[in-house]
């Protein structure tokens, strides 16, 4: 019993992700001599930093039992607002603040419709993803805005510690913050409770609507921040910025062990899954694997990571059954029944 407890974590999703991560790292080491280049290590994070940031908040959204398909459009819109204001002569910092504000407003709208009007967040944020992108189009039309001040672009393009960009440290800080909030704070408790059983949470005096709106607003805020980072990294903004990011983001969160029905998953799992996906993509890029194959491989990984543990469980259940049946046939109603040690039902 003591024994089983100590090793129980091995059966967890986090352990599985960790094992996969190790495998990916080993494979990368063998496949490319450049994998360990400091530049490459920085690139692993740097090239997907915007997605990574949004993954953090998307974990909250999904654990809370909702979904936000509009994040990519909010990223695009905030980058656009920032650029458009800059183009109109505002200092970039002011544009940045406005961009964050716009992100929060988008999140607020999502939250109001989803939580207070009771419209499924899937539709709300789908409409949002079309609409917010549309607003970005209205603002910039077919223009592109660039030539940002160098301090701003250097945030996204130059390392501060070696090749590591400041955005990476922002990510780490937010990850720790997200981890603590989700896993250890009262708010985190509410997020899980609402995601699992909204009615019970409401009976317990939790204002589920308020929590949901807060999370959607945070989602808008983080997406807006990511949008600004995107602008800094690329040094130039068009209305189509960050198009199509949402699916990748959701994939990573789900691979992190978060249930789409809400209520389960941990920040560690999501963090590990992020590392898995980023390293896998990096390794494949270094091996010149094309985009389609990369996506397919991640799709396959997504399926296998759930399938394999489940298959083991199913086999664990079937094998004794088969064994019983065989022994029963052999000694015709035989007296010796094998006992299976493991409980498989949950």
């Amino acid at each position, binding site marked *: 019993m003591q024994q089983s407890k100590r090793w129980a974590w091995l059966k967890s999703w986090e352990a599985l992700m960790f094992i996969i991560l190790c495998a990916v790292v080993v494979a990368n080491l063998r496949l490319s001599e450049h994998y360990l*280049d400091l*530049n490459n290590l920085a690139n692993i994070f740097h090239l997907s930093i915007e997605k990574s940031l949004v993954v953090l908040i998307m974990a909250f959204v999904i654990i809370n039992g909702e979904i936000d398909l509009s994040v990519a459009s909010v990223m695009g819109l905030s980058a656009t607002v920032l650029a458009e204001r800059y183009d109109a002569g505002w200092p970039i910092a002011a544009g940045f603040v406005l961009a964050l504000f716009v992100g929060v407003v988008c999140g607020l709208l999502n939250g109001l419709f989803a939580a207070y009007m009771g419209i499924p967040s899937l539709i709300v944020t789908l409409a949002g993803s079309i609409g917010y992108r549309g607003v970005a189009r209205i603002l910039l039309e077919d223009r*592109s805005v660039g030539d940002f001040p160098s301090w701003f672009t250097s945030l996204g393009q130059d390392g501060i510690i070696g090749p590591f960009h400041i955005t990476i440290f922002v990510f780490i800080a937010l990850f720790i913050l997200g981890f603590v909030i989700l896993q250890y704070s009262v708010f985190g408790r509410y997020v899980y409770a609402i995601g699992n059983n909204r009615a019970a949470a409401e009976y317990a005096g939790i204002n589920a609507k308020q929590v949901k709106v807060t999370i959607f607003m945070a989602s808008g805020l983080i997406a807006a921040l990511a949008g600004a980072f995107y602008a800094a990294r*690329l040094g*130039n903004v*068009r209305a189509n910025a960050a198009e199509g990011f949402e699916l990748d983001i959701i994939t990573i969160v789900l691979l992190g062990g978060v249930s789409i029905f809400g209520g389960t998953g941990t920040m560690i799992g999501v963090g590990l899954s992020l590392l898995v996906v980023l390293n896998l993509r990096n390794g494949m*890029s270094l091996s010149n*694997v094309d985009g389609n194959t990369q*996506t397919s491989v991640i799709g396959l990984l997504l399926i296998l990571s759930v399938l394999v543990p489940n298959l083991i469980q199913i086999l664990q259940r079937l094998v004794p059954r088969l064994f019983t049946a065989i022994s029963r046939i052999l000694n015709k109603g035989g007296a010796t029944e094998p006992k299976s040690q493991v409980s498989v039902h949950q």
Partner: protein
Amino acid sequence: RAQDPEPIKAEPGVELNMVLLPKTLGNAVFDEAHEGAIEAHEELENPGELIFNAPTPDNAIPGQIEIIEASITQEVDAIMISANDYEQLLPSTTKAMEEDITVVTWDSPVSPEGEDLFIAQVDFTEVGSVMANMALSILGEDGGQFAILSATPDASNQNAWIEAMQTLLEEDEQYANLELVDIVYGNDDPDDSYNEALGLVDSYPDLELIMAPTTVGIAAAAKAMQDEELCGEVAVSGLGLPSEMQEFVENGCSQEFALWSFKDLGYLTYYVSYLLASGAMEAEEGVVFEAGRMGTYTIEADPNREDGLRVLMGPFSVYNADNLEEWAAGGDEEGEPEVEATEEAN
């Protein structure tokens, strides 16, 4: 063609690792370009690798950045890019150039500071005039209403061509009777393009021509006209692949369309990149070189882009019922148009 005495010739056998990076994967034209590049690769007996890689459409710009960064990490010698954005790839292509990697753009350039030079398939203004001429020849002297079905509102190539065409329509008396009523965007999606084409027909009862400077758009528009039995009334023209358009020319839905040879483009691009990366040639205005079977070319200032250098491939092939049969008879299997270029008298 420039008549400089001694064109620079390529020295075969230099080991160079080169990356051919089209916009996305799974598009026929880019595969043709790849074929051309392979032909040149073999002709030049390059013992190095020719890597062909591209992102998925939903990750177009960040995907190209990732591939460029991975190429930098792998210390390749040359990157040949058909850019998904004019500015947003700049930080990474400039970085590549700083690492002494030759960056050559083709099909669609980046801003001049981020590339060594651009292999222009045809002159941008020429595309405008070719489209104007096709419109004129279809609508006749009396002219009539026509509309443009483009790719995305922010596709820089298309926008440049359309702009060139519009300028021409305004300035040249010849086109006085051609009335451009609308520009719509099908997002290079067959579905959207099909619907946009029909929307045009519905909105403008007197419309006589849809001009689509995109291969996806032109095919979808032609099919839409065919389905609605409008082929006699509304003509479809623009830039299209002969293999996709043959049917519509035969049944009269499209009289004329144009395109250049992507295979040649790939071939030429490879040659130029090889010359630059092997150090045989500098990317400077006025340099004359020989590109294998395609003959001699000169590096010239790009009239459309300040400080930009280009190699102009040309010429256009305009396809119609007469030469398409030849094309079909000759090159169907190999996918290479055998028609001699019909240089537009302009």
